[in-house]
C-alpha cells in the first residue's frame, strides 16, 4: 500500500487540509458539552437569562462555523481521494501495457480487470472516508477523555478505563470475524461458480437427466453458505449491544461517583451533565469508528492487490536502438530454441530451422505439440528460455518492441475486434493506410461480403470484442487487419478454423498472390491448409519431428503421413 502513496503526493495539501479541518470541527463539537455545562451552572443556576441566551448564541455560532469548516473538509477529502485514485488507475493501466505475455498469463485477465475496477472503487471510497473520519473518531474519543480529565481527574480515569475496555471489545470482535468473512466470501464464490457451471452445462445436465443431483449439490452449497453467514452474524451482532451496555454502565458509575463528589462539593451539577454528554459522544464515535475500520481494512487489502501488480517489473526489456539487419540472412531462423513456461516441462525443445524471405511455412502437429508456442516466439511475445530466435539475421531481443512488432502481422487464434468501426479496427494494422490499401486487404481476406452486408460499409459499428459479428466474420476481419499492415512476416495461427474449406482455400490463394516478399506462417489442424507450403514444420511434443515439403514429408515422415491420412484417407494421396 505504501508505494501507492506517491500518487497522493500531488494532493498533499488537500489530504492534510481535510483531516485538519475535520479536527477543528471535532474540537468545536467537544466544546458543546462545556458550554451547556456553563449555561446550566452560570446561567440557569444563577438565574442569569441573558448569560444563558448568550451561550445558546455561541452554540449556534459554533454550529455555523462547524458547517463551513466541514464543507471545506469534505471538499478537500473528496478531491484528494478522487485525484489519488485517478492517478493510481492511470498508472496501473499504463503499467499493464508494459507487462509481457507471460506476466499477463500468470496474473489472468479477469483478476487484472477486478483490480482496475472494483478494487479502485473500494480504494477511493476508503481513502475518502479515511481522510474524513480517521482523525475525527479517535480525536473525539480521546478528546472527550481529555475533557473529562480537565473537568475531573477521577472521572477522567473512568473514561480511560471505559475506552480501553471498548477498544478491546471492538478489536476482539473484528479479529474473530475478519477470517470468518473471508470464509463466507469463498463459499459465495463456490455458489456463484455452481450457478455459472449449470448454465453453461444446461444441455449436458438435461441430456444425462442429472437435474436432481445438481439441485442437491447446489442446496448443499447454499446451506453451507447459510451456516457460515449465521455463524459470523452471531459474533458481529454482539458489537453494538456490548458497546451499548458498557457505555451505559459507565454512565451509572459516573452518576454515582458524581453524586458523591457533588455532595462533597468537589464537582457541580453542570459538570456532571457535561461528563454525561461526553460519554454519549464517545458511544456515537465508537460505532462510526468501527464501521470505518472495516472499510479501511478492505481498502488496504485492495490497495495491496493493486500495488502487487504495480511492483511487477516486466520480465522483458527492449533496447532503444534497432539492430543491423542482414539482407541475405533468412527471414526467420530458430537456433536450438527451447521454451518453457513457468518451470513446467518445455513446450518447445531445441528447435532449429531457417525460412527464406517470401516462403510460406506450414506448422502442423497434434493438440499441445507446441505450434502456437513456436509462432509466438517470432514477434517475441515470449522469450526463449534457450537458444536464439532471429528475424532478418538479428536476435529478436535486440529489436525495439515497436520495430519488431511492426514487421509482423499476427492473426491470433481468438478472433477479437475492438469497439469502434470496421475502419478503425483495420487501421490498427497501419495508422496511415489509404482507402485502396484497406479495400485490398478486405478483398484478400475474403470479407468483401461482410462489408457489403453493412449499410455503412467500412464505417459499420463494431461492438465490444466484435460481438455483433459471427466467428467466421471476425476471423476474416482479423486477417484483413493483419494484411493492412503489409507485414514482412504474416502469422496465421489456426485463424481459418471457422471458415469452410472452400473459403479457406480462396483465402490462401489470395494471400499467395499479394505483391511483395511476405513470409507466411500458417498454423493449422488441417493438412489441406498447409500442403502447398514451401516448408512444413511437423511438431510432436515440442520437438521438430520433421521438416520439408509435402511430397518429401509424405515419404519420410511417418507422423506427417498419419496426420494426412487421418484426414484424407489412405487412398486419396495417390490421386
Amino acid at each position, binding site marked *: 500500500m505504501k508505494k501507492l502513496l506517491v500518487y497522493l503526493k500531488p494532493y498533499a495539501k488537500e489530504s492534510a487540509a481535510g483531516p485538519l479541518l475535520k479536527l477543528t470541527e471535532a474540537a468545536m463539537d467537544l466544546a*458543546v458539552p462545556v458550554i451547556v455545562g456553563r*449555561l446550566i451552572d452560570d446561567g*440557569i443556576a444563577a438565574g442569569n437569562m441573558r448569560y*444563558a*441566551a448568550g451561550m445558546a448564541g455561541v452554540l*449556534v455560532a*459554533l*454550529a455555523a462555523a*462547524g*458547517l463551513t469548516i*466541514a464543507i471545506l473538509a*469534505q471538499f478537500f477529502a*473528496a*478531491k484528494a481521494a*478522487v*485525484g489519488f485514485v*485517478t492517478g493510481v488507475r492511470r498508472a496501473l493501466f499504463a503499467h499493464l*501495457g508494459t507487462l509481457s505475455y507471460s506476466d499477463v498469463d500468470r496474473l489472468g*485477465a479477469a483478476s487484472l*480487470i477486478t483490480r482496475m*475496477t472494483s478494487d479502485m472503487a473500494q480504494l477511493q471510497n476508503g481513502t475518502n472516508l479515511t481522510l474524513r473520519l480517521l482523525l475525527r473518531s479517535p480525536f473525539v474519543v480521546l478528546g472527550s477523555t481529555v475533557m473529562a480529565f480537565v473537568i475531573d481527574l477521577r472521572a477522567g480515569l473512568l473514561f480511560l478505563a471505559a475506552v480501553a475496555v471498548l477498544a478491546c471489545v471492538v478489536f476482539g470482535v473484528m479479529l474473530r470475524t475478519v477470517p470468518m468473512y473471508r470464509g463466507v466470501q469463498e463459499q459465495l464464490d463456490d455458489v*456463484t461458480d455452481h450457478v*455459472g457451471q449449470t*448454465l453453461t*452445462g*444446461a*444441455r*449436458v445436465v*438435461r*441430456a*444425462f437427466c442429472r437435474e436432481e443431483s445438481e*439441485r442437491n449439490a*447446489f442446496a448443499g452449497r*447454499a*446451506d453451507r*453458505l*447459510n451456516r457460515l*453467514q449465521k455463524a459470523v*452474524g452471531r459474533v458481529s451482532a454482539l458489537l453494538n*449491544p456490548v458497546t*451499548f*451496555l458498557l457505555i451505559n454502565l459507565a*454512565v*451509572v458509575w459516573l452518576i454515582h461517583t*458524581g453524586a458523591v463528589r457533588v*455532595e462533597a*462539593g468537589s464537582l457541580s451539577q453542570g459538570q456532571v451533565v457535561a461528563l*454525561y*454528554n461526553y460519554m454519549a459522544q464517545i458511544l456515537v464515535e465508537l460505532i462510526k469508528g468501527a464501521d470505518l475500520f472495516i472499510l479501511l481494512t478492505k481498502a488496504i487489502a485492495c490497495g495491496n492487490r493493486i500495488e502487487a501488480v504495480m511492483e511487477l517489473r516486466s520480465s522483458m526489456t527492449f533496447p532503444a536502438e534497432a539492430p543491423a539487419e542482414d539482407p541475405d540472412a533468412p527471414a526467420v531462423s530458430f537456433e536450438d530454441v527451447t521454451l518453457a513456461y513457468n518451470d513446467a516441462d518445455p513446450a518447445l525443445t531445441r528447435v532449429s530451422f531457417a525460412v527464406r524471405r517470401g516462403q510460406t511455412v506450414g506448422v502442423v502437429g*497434434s*493438440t499441445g505439440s507446441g505450434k502456437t508456442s513456436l509462432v509466438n516466439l517470432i514477434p517475441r511475445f515470449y522469450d526463449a528460455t534457450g537458444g536464439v530466435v532471429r528475424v532478418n539475421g538479428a536476435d529478436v531481443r535486440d529489436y525495439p518492441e515497436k520495430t519488431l*512488432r511492426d514487421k509482423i502481422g499476427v492473426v*491470433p487464434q481468438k478472433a*477479437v475486434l*475492438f469497439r469502434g468501426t470496421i475502419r478503425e479496427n483495420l487501421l490498427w494494422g497501419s495508422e496511415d493506410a489509404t482507402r485502396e490499401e484497406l479495400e485490398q486487404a478486405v478483398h484478400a481476406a475474403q470479407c468483401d461480403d461482410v462489408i457489403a452486408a453493412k449499410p455503412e460499409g467500412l464505417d459499420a459499428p463494431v461492438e465490444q470484442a466484435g460481438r455483433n459479428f459471427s466467428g467466421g466474420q471476425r476471423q476474416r476481419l482479423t486477417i484483413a487487419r493483419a494484411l493492412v499492415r503489409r507485414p514482412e512476416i504474416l502469422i496465421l495461427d489456426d485463424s481459418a478454423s471457422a471458415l469452410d474449406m*472452400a473459403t479457406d482455400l480462396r483465402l490462401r490463394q489470395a494471400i499467395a498472390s499479394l505483391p511483395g516478399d511476405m513470409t507466411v506462417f500458417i498454423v493449422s489442424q*488441417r493438412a489441406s491448409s498447409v*500442403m502447398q507450403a514451401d516448408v512444413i514444420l511437423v511438431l510432436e511434443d515440442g520437438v521438430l519431428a520433421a521438416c520439408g515439403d509435402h511430397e518429401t514429408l509424405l515419404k519420410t515422415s511417418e507422423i506427417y503421413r498419419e496426420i494426412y491420412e487421418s*484426414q*484424407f484417407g489412405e487412398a486419396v494421396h495417390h490421386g
Partner: protein
Amino acid sequence: MAESKAKAPRGTVRRVLACVRPYRARLGLSVLMAAVFSVGELTLPIMAGRAIDLIVAPGSVDFAALAPILTRIAVVTAVCAAAQWVMNALGNAVTFGVVRDVRKQAFDRILRVPVKYVDAHPHGDVVSRIVTDADQFADGLLLGFNKCFCGVISIVGTLVFMLVINWKIALVVALLTPLSLFAARTISRRSYRAFQAQSTLRGEQTGLIDETLENIKTVKAFSREAARLAAFDDLNGRLSKASLRATFLSSLTNPTTRFVNSVVYAAVALCGSAAIVSGHFAVGGAAFTVGALSGFLAYANRYTKPFNEISGVFAELQNALACAARLFELLDAAEETPDGADARVLTDPAGGVSFRDAAFSYDPARPFIRDLSLDVKPGQRVAIVGPTGCGKTTLINLLMRFYDVTGGSVAVDGTDVRDITRGSLRRSFGMVLQETWLMHGTVAENIAYARPDASREEIVAAAKKAHAHSFIRRLPDGYDTVVGADGGSLSQGQRQQLCAARLFLAQPRMLILDEATSSIDTRTEQQIQAAFTRLMEGRTAFIVAHRLSTIRHADVILVMRDGQIVETGDHETLLARGGFYAELHQAQFGAVST
C-alpha cells in the same frame, strides 16, 4: 423520486412477504425485540435526567432516591442490550435464510426452464440475479425494514417523551426538524444525478478496460498500448470530474443535517433555560428542571437521527425492490411444458427416428427449418454436413427436445417425442458436443456423470476406449484429480476425450456426436473414431462433423444448407451427383490434384 417509487409493483411486495412467511415467528420476535430496545433506550435519558436532578448541590444529594434509579438504569440497559443482540441475530438468521431459500428456488428454476431460456439470456446476468440480487434484496429489505421500524418507534417515542416533559419545547423541536429533512432531500436529489453520471462513465471505462485486458495480447501485437492509454486517459479525466462532484455533493448531507441538529439543540437549551429561570415555556404547574433539560437535550440530539436513517432506508428499499423484481422475473420464467400424464416411458428403443414436415425457427419472424422430412432406420449411421449455420445443431436440439418443433413432428420408434417423457427420451440418447462441459469434480465423477453408480473398473474401461487413460494416469491424482468447470489444466482435446469416455460408459441406444472430436488431433481422433465405430454397431447414430473423412463411411449423409436438406445419399452417390456435397469435398481434396 416519489414517482419512481411507485414502479415496484404491488405484486412484488406481496411475493416478498410470501418469501418471509416461513420465518414469520422469528421475524415477529425480532420486531418485538426492536420495540423493547427502542422504548428501553428512550427511557434512559429520562432516568439519567432524574438522577442528575437529585444531585443539585453539596449537602443536598438524595442518595436514598438515587440508588433505585441507578439500579433501574443498569437493568434497563442490560435488557436493551440483550434485546438488541437477539434482534440482530434473528434479523441475520431471517435474512440469510430468505436468501438461501430464494437462491434454491431460482436454481431449481434454471433446471426447469427450456434450454431456449438459457440460450437467450446472458449467463452473467442470470448469475448476478441469483447471487447479487438475492443478497441485496434480502439485505436491503429486512435490514431496511428493521431500521425503518426502529426509526419510527424512536421518532414517535422521542416525540411522546418530549411532549410529556414539556410540550411547548417539544413543539419547537418538531417544527425545526423538517429543515434537516428538506436539506437532506435537496442534496440527495442533486447527488443522485451526479452519481448516475459517475456510473455511466464508470461503465464506459470498465468496457474499455475489459476489452483491452481480455485482449491485451492483440493490443501488444499491434503496438497499440499508447492509443489505448490515450482513450483511457480521456475517460479517466471525465470520470475523475464526475466522481469528485458526486462524492463531494453526497458528503454534504451529514454536515448540513448536523448543523440543523445543532441549531435545534441550541434552541432547546435556550427555551429550556427560559423555562427554568423565568417560567416561559413552562407547562402546567410542573417545574422544568436541569435534569429534565439534560434529558431533553439528549432527545433533541437523537430526534433527527432516525429521520436521516429512514430517508436513507427509502433509497435502500427501492433498490431492494428493484432487485427483488429482477429475481422474481427469473422465478417466473416459464417452465418447460411438463410431460403429459400418459406420456410414454421409452425403454430400450429400437432407434428408428423420423421427422415429418418438421418446421422450426428460433425467431418467429424468420422461418428456419421448413417441411423437413426424414426417416432413419434403427441402427443406421447418419452424418450431417453443411456450412456453419445450416441447421445441423438445430436438428440435434429437436431430437433431444431441447427445443420443440413449431410445426410437423419428430418421432422415435413411431411415437411423437412430445408424447415421451423427456427423461426417458434423453436417457436413450448419448451425446458428445463440440463445446465440452465438465462439472467441478474429479475426473472419475465426470466420466460417471451419466451413471453415478458405475464402478471404478467400468470408468477406467470407458476412459481406455476414449484413449484418455494414459493422460489421466499422468494427472497429479489420477482419476481423483479435481477438474474445475473450466477444465483446469486440461486441453480442449483432453476435455473432449473425457466427454467421449462418458458416452462409452453410458452405452446409450442412440448416439449424437456433434463435432465430438474437433479439438482432438487427427491421429488420436482416428483411434477414438475406431472405438466409436464399434460402439455404433447396431445403434442409431447422428454425426455432425467438419472433416469429411470422419463421415464418409456413414450409411446416409444429409447435406444441409439454410435449414433445408439439399442432398441425401451415401458418399459415392453424392460425389457422383456433382452437387453441393461434391463442391465441399472438392474444397478439401481439390488441392491434391494441383
